[in-house]
């Protein structure tokens, strides 16, 4: 897991780089700004369900592969 929000661990940067997409390309496919993708990757922002599903669809993975709840 990469840099994460305190309430949500994310693996977005790793999976995105694995598919060879840039932040800009992913943002265009997910219909948001590049800074939103950057904010999610750096744990600054927790995306909405719709955005999480769009990102997962673009990266051809499940939402659970991208995001996980931190273990208590």
């Amino acid at each position, binding site marked *: 897991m990469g840099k994460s929000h305190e309430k949500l661990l994310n693996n977005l940067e790793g999976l995105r780089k694995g598919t060879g997409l840039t932040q800009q390309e992913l943002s*265009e496919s997910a*219909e948001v*700004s*590049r800074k*939103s993708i950057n904010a999610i990757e750096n744990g600054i*922002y927790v995306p909405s369900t719709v955005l999480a599903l769009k990102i997962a669809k673009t990266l051809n993975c499940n939402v659970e592969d991208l995001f996980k709840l931190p273990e208590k």
Partner: protein
Amino acid sequence: MTFFKRFLVLFICGAVQVFFATYLLLELLGFGLAWHLMNHDMMFIPGILVFVGSGYLTFSYYFLSDEQSNNALYDEFTALRYYKLATAGYVINGIGIFILFSIQDWQNWSFELANNMIYQIAAFAWLIFGVLLVWFSMGDFKESKGG
């Protein structure tokens, strides 16, 4: 529409609001300013700018930009930034109005003082939202470049 154009529109509107609101607030609070506006019609400038600026942003959203640009410019992360700053504005205005109420001369209260207080509150709210507009525009543009 681009992030830079939006930055320009919002920054200019905000900065002009800050200038006029600060001037008005200082005048109303009794600070002896060495410089005075001679033509009071100039006080319409910030209002006209806001009308023109918001009109341009709305027009460009529907008629000048493509869907991809609109998706990037008006996404949920930008909305969150706006909500946070607007909330901060309401909180600061609430505190400011409380302070403005507290510093009035209630012993010698008159319609003139009441009128003055209403102007003070309006100028203060105007100043706060002007500052937040400048803040939003700068943060939004900075993030679009490298954030």
